[in-house]
């Protein structure tokens, strides 16, 4: 079980939820599928590109990054730079 945090203005797409509990996901790819299924409004955002933080480490486009059980997961706007 992981608790996924959704950033403020994305919460509308997650039916107003600030956190979503998702069970049995071992990777980012599985997480995205589960999230899109639970809250279809999230799907276009996940598709367009977001960053995912797992226990404080931020990843882009990393489908197979493992998500340890009980880890803290946040969906963030895509991080870039200059």
């Amino acid at each position, binding site marked *: 079980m992981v608790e996924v*945090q959704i*950033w*403020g*203005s994305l919460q*509308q797409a997650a039916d107003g939820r*600030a956190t979503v509990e998702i069970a049995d996901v071992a990777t980012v790819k599985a997480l995205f599928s589960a999230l899109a299924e639970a809250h279809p409004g999230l799907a276009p955002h996940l598709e367009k590109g977001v960053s995912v*933080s797992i*226990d*404080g*480490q*931020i*990843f*882009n*486009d*990393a489908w197979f*990054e493992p998500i340890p059980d009980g880890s*803290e997961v*946040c969906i*963030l*706007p895509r*991080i*870039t*730079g*200059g």
Partner: protein
Amino acid sequence: MPLDVKPGLEARKFKLVGTRPLRPDGIDKVTGRARFGADMSAPGMLVGRILRSPHAHARIRSIDVSKAAALPGVKAIVTRDDFGDCPDDLVDIRDNVMAREKALYEGHAVAAVAAVSASVARQALKLIEVDYEVLPHVTDVEKAALPDAPLLHDDMVTQGLEETPAKPSNIASRCQFGHGDVDKGFAQADLVVERKFRTEATHQGYIEPHACLATMASDGQADLWVCTQGHYYVREACAGLLGMDLSMLRVTASEIGGGFGGKTTVFLEPVALALSRKSNRPVKLVMSRDEVFKASGPTSSSSIWVKIGVTRDGRITAAEALIKFQGGAYAGSPITLGAMSAFACYALENVKSVGYDVVVNRPKQASYRAPGAPMVAFAVESVIDEIAGQLGMDPVDLRLVNAVNDGDKSSYGPKLPKVGLRQTLEAAKAHPHYTAPLGPNQGRGIACGFWFNFGGQTCVSLNLNVDGTVALAVGTPDIGGSRASMSLIAAEELGIPYEKVRCIVADTSSLGHNDITEGSRVTFSSGLATIEAARSCIQVLCARAARIWDIPPEAVVWEDGHARPAGPNAGEFEPMSLAEIARLAPKTGGPIAGHAEINAGGAGVSFATHLVDSEVDPETGRVSIVRYTVIQDAGKAIHPAYVEGQYQGGAVQGIGWALNEEYIYGEDGRLQNAGFLDYRIPVASDLPMIDTVIVEVPNPRHPYGVRGVGETSIVPPLAAIANSVSAAAGVRLAELPMSPPRVLAAIDGMKAAAE
């Protein structure tokens, strides 16, 4: 695959990493041999020039190129008609590269010509007849957000609101971050300070204008030479806009004369290719400085409101920000990064930041070093400073009370991994600068800054030559000495001298995809890939030695540049050096190489604390920077001289932003200072030496502990300088730049109020 990262990084002893060898491109760059964007030529080359809108906002009724096309020496002309359908994510880029229905800012490209000489091209531009219907314009972020503002895009509906509005507006989107309950937090506060801030738009100010040389043959094969931070991105964007296969376009990154985020997108490149396609000749396009200011991608101007509540002992109970950025004529200002980073230095129970992305009749913004963060840090760190003053608390102590620690929940969401803010604050307090006496009319300012840093897709190819030297190919353009760092890392891993490695930046056909050199990612990501490539090369080296010795490959270890037999065979054979194994490679199985293709995650965030003393002339409002110290966490400095260089360069760009740099628009919506004469970047005589302190709190996700260093250094300066000027002038400065008229008006206003 993530590399095996072992704890106890601090204990690692490096032979080369952390030393300061000479950079491999040094001699080329001090002799004038290095070839930058505009330095390349091709046989039969034409000169390209771009016609730009003189209006801030105008409907383009028609473009008549017939007279220009008839001018002898003109070989091709392109307009909006030459750029057709393209992928959705490139639509704004396409429209920015060549205006369609409307010109949305002064300088917006409207047509381009290729001709046999610059003078013919110039004449041709004058012969192009554009029929404009001039429209009302808006260049100010606040005014553009008003309901009756001139509308740039009829179909722009604000994204991110609870209810999608029925009417279009110039507000592209709203975003919100935070946690807790700020109202509850403010109710618990003993002191609440709030203030409004404004910053003007600034330009990255790279000294090399955009330049490229495009060659496309009639079979569609094309080459592009260009100064860019990301030649793979240039390839994707150009291929997408021109309907080409990626394989048909080879992009070579020239030496790049500064980027700072401004060379992470395309402006000239698709136009040059279109002109080359039409003329069947090589076409060189180079921007003038005037075009760079008017038609490349400066950063956002901003309007920011910040409110922070604290208890008597300095603990922050709530923090809130409302941030508006204009990002030029298209959506995409760095508002999310600005809003996320606003309070990232502090561990907060109740925090909220709301951002709006607003479009105006100005050039489409591009990234600028830690995009979005410096302006927001200016506002937040100014309020923190004001609170310290009102509480009578030392400003470092106030920050230490609230500074984030390892594992704290960040203001933008996730809990923080290992972080080094506290260490930079403690180093600031211990630095002699912090307690040095100040002269008359001088003030000291301090501010902290944060940046995310970034990893991303990266390829490295490491080829061993038969003489034991190494050809290292990376795909991230070198904008600040990264070839030296990559060579150091490869040499460190392989156990050979630095001089035995030669690192080059490969073109898009020679190496797999690499993300742009941005987000302070190169030393981290290309460094990781280099380590991985070197380690895969070492595996091959050990396997070859094992075959030569006829022992199992697991029984060979790599130490100090040598394969050594280990385990039961230890001491059985003389260790073989890399050079010996390389020499025998043709007989032992052929060439030896290592390579890595990764998507690097886990770039460590970084923090900095800046200290600055400034002096204000109370009669003229003129500000001099008299002392400056940068203290920043680098994780691990690979080549400390170039880490210091990043610290110093970021600080000085911040000094320019704080004091004198600004885009100045007239009532007519035209930029009034499109040149280095009146867009005033700091000159050598404006500055003191910039002292640096490299703090090293290793990033646990990198085998050496590296964090990005390029961007964080521009985050604290605006606030640090504002705090020092406010201390020296005796009045809070809340608008940038703190140009003399503004500072003098603030001083005079304070005096008038006191009377």
